[in-house]
């Protein structure tokens, strides 16, 4: 049991730091650059994102294992997974609106954005590719969510400062954000080799 726990811990650390989705896989960039202008929105997005990620990874795993493998339709996984994600986002949108309108008012807008995020689709696909078990899939999703949150929060705190800086005109806005992301990515290369799975 101890060895398994360590394996799970390694998976979380590896997915969040060493193989950070934003900085080494370059996924979820649209949202990463779109929502990281303010700290408040970045945090809201991170919470919603991590929650949806874990739930969607769990459901996708169950669907893949207990519906798609018995039916022999693994090649349809792109279509099925996108359906799972879209259904989940739509469902949690409706449930949140009924159950806790306060939370919906705060985080609801991020939910709609999430369905266009490629990480949320990439995690189930990679879970299948790497043949993770159910618990491992959840750990991987949790690590990915935490890694994305970390990236968002670092980025937002830098961009709030950069708003005040005097940047050459062609670089204003996105190009500068890219350069900053490059520098953070450079820092994140320091984590490579920390854990090899």
């Amino acid at each position, binding site marked *: 049991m101890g060895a398994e726990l360590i394996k799970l811990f390694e998976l979380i650390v590896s997915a969040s730091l060493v193989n950070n989705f934003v900085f080494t896989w*370059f996924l979820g960039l649209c949202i990463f650059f779109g929502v990281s202008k303010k700290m408040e929105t970045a945090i809201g997005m991170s919470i919603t994102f991590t929650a949806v990620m874990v739930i969607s990874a769990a459901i996708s795993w169950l669907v893949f294992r207990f519906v798609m493998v018995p039916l022999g339709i693994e090649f349809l996984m792109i279509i099925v997974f996108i359906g799972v994600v879209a259904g989940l986002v739509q469902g949690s949108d409706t449930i949140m609106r009924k159950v806790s309108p306060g939370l919906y008012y705060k985080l609801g807008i991020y939910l709609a954005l999430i369905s266009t995020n490629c990480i949320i689709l990439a995690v189930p696909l990679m879970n299948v590719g790497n043949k993770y078990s159910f618990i491992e899939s959840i750990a991987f999703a949790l690590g990915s969510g935490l890694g994305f949150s970390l990236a968002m929060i670092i980025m937002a705190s830098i961009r709030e400062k950069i708003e005040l800086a005097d940047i050459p005109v062609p670089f204003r806005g996105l190009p500068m954000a890219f350069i900053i992301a490059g520098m953070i990515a450079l820092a994140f290369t320091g984590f490579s080799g920390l854990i090899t799975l």
Partner: protein
Amino acid sequence: MSDANQISYWELIKNGILKENTIFKLALSLCPAIAVTTSLKNGFFMGVAVVFVQVMVNLTVSAMRKFIHQRIRLPIFMLVISGWVTVVNLLMDAYVPDVYKEVGLYIQLIVAFASILARAEMFASKNRLTPSLFDGLGMGLGFLVALVFISIFRELFGKGTILGVSIIGAKPLLILVLPAGGFFAVGILMALFNWLYARYAAKPGAH
């Protein structure tokens, strides 16, 4: 856009490549722009896959636009897109396995491209077959051109080669092929595109 057939097809293609360039102007679908552009070959095949999916999705949506009910159009568009992405995914796996090994994940994630869904929604679902074809071609080519530019820049300065053939004979800026360099490359090229656009296209006669 009911008078779209009066706009020439060339205009539609130019619109996709310059005015609404997916990567440099709209800043959409950035993930693969950085991930697969470490070499020209990968960037090119990724671009071709996107052109194919965009054109086929536009054609399918345009052909079915009279039968799609307004309320459920988005799920149907998603279904069409993921269908064509599955086709490209299997084709690439079969015919260019060495490229697929490196860019496979990103090919599958074409599904999540906002730009493809946006063109289906904004253009193909309202226009006839031929304009939709050229619109898809233009948007796809815009993406392809951007990817090719970025990957030439990165491969030439990062590895000193083009398509694996040595040009410079040294590795002047190794950082460009590292993950972090991708961000720098796109940032710099985007700024360059902004600068050229502001200088020559947006304000003719100024300066």
